[in-house]
């Protein structure tokens, strides 16, 4: 399947580092559905800048430690 976005992320790694936080827990803390977290993790959806900041805030890291863009 061709991924519709070039944005990659480290959410899975960051969840693991944060005491194996579940996708559901992250979704609750960001205020989105678990399916949206899954879609972001799999590169099927690029979140808005606001949601990206919220995700980074949950992990207590900067935005570029969560999301990456090639080049």
């Amino acid at each position: 399947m061709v991924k519709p976005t070039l944005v990659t992320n480290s959410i899975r790694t960051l969840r693991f580092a944060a005491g194996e936080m579940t996708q559901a827990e992250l979704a609750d803390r960001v205020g989105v559905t678990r399916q949206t977290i899954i879609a972001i993790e799999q590169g099927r959806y690029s979140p808005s800048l606001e949601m990206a900041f919220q995700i980074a805030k949950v992990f207590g890291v900067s935005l570029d430690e969560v999301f990456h863009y090639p080049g």
Partner: protein
Amino acid sequence: MSFEERLTWVNAVVSVVVTAVYCAVVFGRLGNMPVADVAYQWAMLISILALVVLTIIGAILMAVGTAVSAEITGNGSVDDIDRKDERDVQISHRGMRTGYVVSSVGGVLALGLAMLEYDYFWIANALFLSFVVAGLVTSAVKLMAYRRGF
């Protein structure tokens, strides 16, 4: 599958079933009598009503099913039922944009039929089917966006 995606499936299934029944009933009468005599009005009104009522019933059943499933399996939460995030909204807008184009084309087609003085039967059915097809295309685009991403 998010609750919004499930609702999209409900819309799609209801639209397909109701339209199939409508077409079988109304277009099945076409061969037996002149087009002007084919009674389509009640079938169309009942179909529109059925689309609304069955979609509501489907949504209620889906909500109940989601809640029961969350309670039994512990997978998901009742909160998921009314949770709609930015991705759902963007997917909904994408689907409606495409559906709007389809219904506009159907509207233009109906205008053309009226200008060419086709029977009311064809004009009414062109409009009805363009709305139904637009709804189906909306659902299809949304489901593809949910499955494949965008």
